[in-house]
């Protein structure tokens, strides 16, 4: 493989990994703290995308400056994530924290399916697309190949900012440290007087906003259509499982690994393009069943 193609495949892989990371990190954060695998996460992604596309289209219909579409993506993500996150945590998850894992999985899966139908009711069956943000940032030439600045600069920058922001939040702020404490040892944390219920709510909303942000940031590059949420939840679960459930930095590295694996596959063995993320997952889990970055669970007596 010549060095130019190597560079091109790397750029494609990074751009793809940035979006996958945003969704996967929310999923892994929620799991780390609450020990719930939230299937409805995929629906947050899709609804974030629909809401962002609608808002960007409304801005362009109203003849406002198209640059407003960038804050619109963030507003849509924050709005959808906060609203859905709060409602689902408060009225659904809160009732099942003490229940078996299988039941929790089924309940979030049911929420996912209900939200899929909500999407159909609200946005209908036609694909939605709002490409203004990509157009505004234009393209950059890499070795004679035009790339969207939006995809190879903005998305990776945002992904790195989210990663650094989360690290700082979890390690340097009091609320972050409280969340980390609950993740490490819930019982001791509660015994120390930490309000676990509040921690759960905050974590779930942060996770939901991250999923919606992933969808919102994807919407300028892809048509938002029915079935998108299912696609994303499967892929981000592969990332989270490979990294080890609950691992924030691990999710970033694994997203990068899977992104690069996929883009190299398209250049070298396009037939394997779809399989690559899952092949990586199977290989990793065969040798490290707890995931690449997970520390072995301490046995509590």
């Amino acid at each position, binding site marked *: 493989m010549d060095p130019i193609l190597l560079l091109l495949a790397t750029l*494609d892989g990074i751009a793809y990994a940035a979006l996958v990371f945003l969704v996967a990190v929310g999923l892994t954060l929620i799991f780390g703290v609450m020990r719930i695998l939230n299937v409805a996460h995929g629906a947050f992604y899709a609804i974030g995308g629909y809401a962002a596309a609608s808002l960007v289209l409304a801005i362009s219909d109203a003849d406002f400056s198209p640059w407003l579409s960038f804050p619109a993506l963030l507003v849509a993500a924050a709005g959808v994530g906060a609203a859905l996150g709060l409602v689902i945590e408060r009225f659904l998850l809160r009732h099942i924290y003490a229940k078996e894992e299988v039941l929790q999985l089924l309940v979030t899966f049911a929420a996912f399916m209900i939200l899929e139908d909500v999407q159909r009711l609200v946005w209908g*069956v*036609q694909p939605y697309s709002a490409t203004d943000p*990509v*157009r505004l940032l234009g393209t950059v030439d890499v070795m004679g190949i035009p*790339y969207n600045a939006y995809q190879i600069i903005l998305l990776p920058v945002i992904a790195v900012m989210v990663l650094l922001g989360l690290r700082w939040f979890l390690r340097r702020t009091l609320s972050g440290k409280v969340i980390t404490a609950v993740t490490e040892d819930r019982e001791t944390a509660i015994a120390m007087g930490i309000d676990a219920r509040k921690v759960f709510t905050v974590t779930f909303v942060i996770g939901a906003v991250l999923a919606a942000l992933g969808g919102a940031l994807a919407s300028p590059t892809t048509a938002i259509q029915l079935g998108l949420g299912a696609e994303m939840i499967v892929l981000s679960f592969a990332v989270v499982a490979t990294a080890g459930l609950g691992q924030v930095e691990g999710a970033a590295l694994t997203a990068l690994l899977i992104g690069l694996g996929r883009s190299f596959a398209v250049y070298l063995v396009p037939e394997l393009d779809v399989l690559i993320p899952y092949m990586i997952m199977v290989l990793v889990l065969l040798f490290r069943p707890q995931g690449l970055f997970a520390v072995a669970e301490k046995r509590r007596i």
Partner: protein
Amino acid sequence: MNGLLKLSIAMALALYAEAAAADKPDTLTIGITGFLSGPASVFGEPAKAASEILLDDLNREGGIGGVPVTAVWVDEGAGGEHVLSEYRRLVQDVGVDAMFASISSGNCKKVAPLAEDLQVLNIMWDCGTQKIFEENSYRYVFRTQANATPEMLSTLLYLLKTKPEFESIAVVNQDYAWGRDSWHIFSTALKQLKPGVRVVAELFPKFGAPDFSTEISRLLALRPDVILSTAWGGDLDNFVRQSVQRGLTERSTFVLPLMESSLQRIGPDMPEGVIVGGRGDHYFLHPEFRQDPDFQAFIERYKAETGEYPIYPVFHIAQALSALKGAYEKAIAANDGAWPGKEQVVEAMEGLEFRGLGRTVHIREDHQGVEDQMIGVTRHDPAYDFAVMDHMMIFPGSAITTPAGMESTAWLKTLSDSILDLPVQTYRHAE
């Protein structure tokens, strides 16, 4: 005379007696399967909206032979098993007079033997697989439009006629039966008619893939003269939009045989000079009928009720309804004006000629419809906020459809350059 023959004659007579004595029903009911959910609902919903308008028009003019027609829809999006059980229920419990199934080729393959078992007239109104009548023969199953072979061959012929100098090609098709089969047909014919062309990439991204960035980077680096994609729906929208954003449409000639159904969604972003088709001569500005008052009235009513212009599945459902009407009328005439039995209607389908919203279609002895194919290139007209078609060529279906009794791959390998001299009518877009 042996026993079996006697039995057959007795059964035939019994059928005839049943047929000749059929009473005129109060209504004719059709069951229609189509996608009303999932990605392919971009085809099912327009066809359903069109069927309501067309049936309303038909019933206002007295229905079929004085009998009003109603339709019941089944959602193919609920899965193949659901389609089969609903199909059985509609035929056996509801007692529908005919079935129109389906959009998915997979579902067409499943319902064909079921229609034979249930002895119900089944019109394949939209599915594209050419294999149905090449691998099996059916009594009750008919297709009222072309299949993948003429659709792909006409696309290739248009490319060879308008861009004969191309030397390399890449394909980006969805990774499922249609994506694979359509490329097989196209590439087989290409090897036969222009053997030196290099295939530089064969990419089959996952069905429903949201992001084609990597494929596009690779194609930008490979610089093929021609890029073919038979994708449709949101996948095609994504591939085209992302290619435009990255300048790929400026480097390579795009050939998109199903693009007619995505033009309105892509809107002003669609580049000019892209070779596009709509699975037949299906186009809301059909150059031969756009002045026709009935055609215009339908297009205007459809636009008023749905907010969109009709796309090819609308034309397909119109053809299926027109064929059903034609078959009943032919059978009534053959029955001296008396209402025909269902076997007589099935017999009337063979050799039937009918017109939906495009040119006349003819049902061949193997039950395959022979339909003309229109291909054109995109251009912009300020009267529309999306791209329209220009330099349209209409290819005669009889010359580009695999002859009855032959298999498509074998037939395509017998093609010679003379097919390029086929007389075709060419039309410009009229502003």
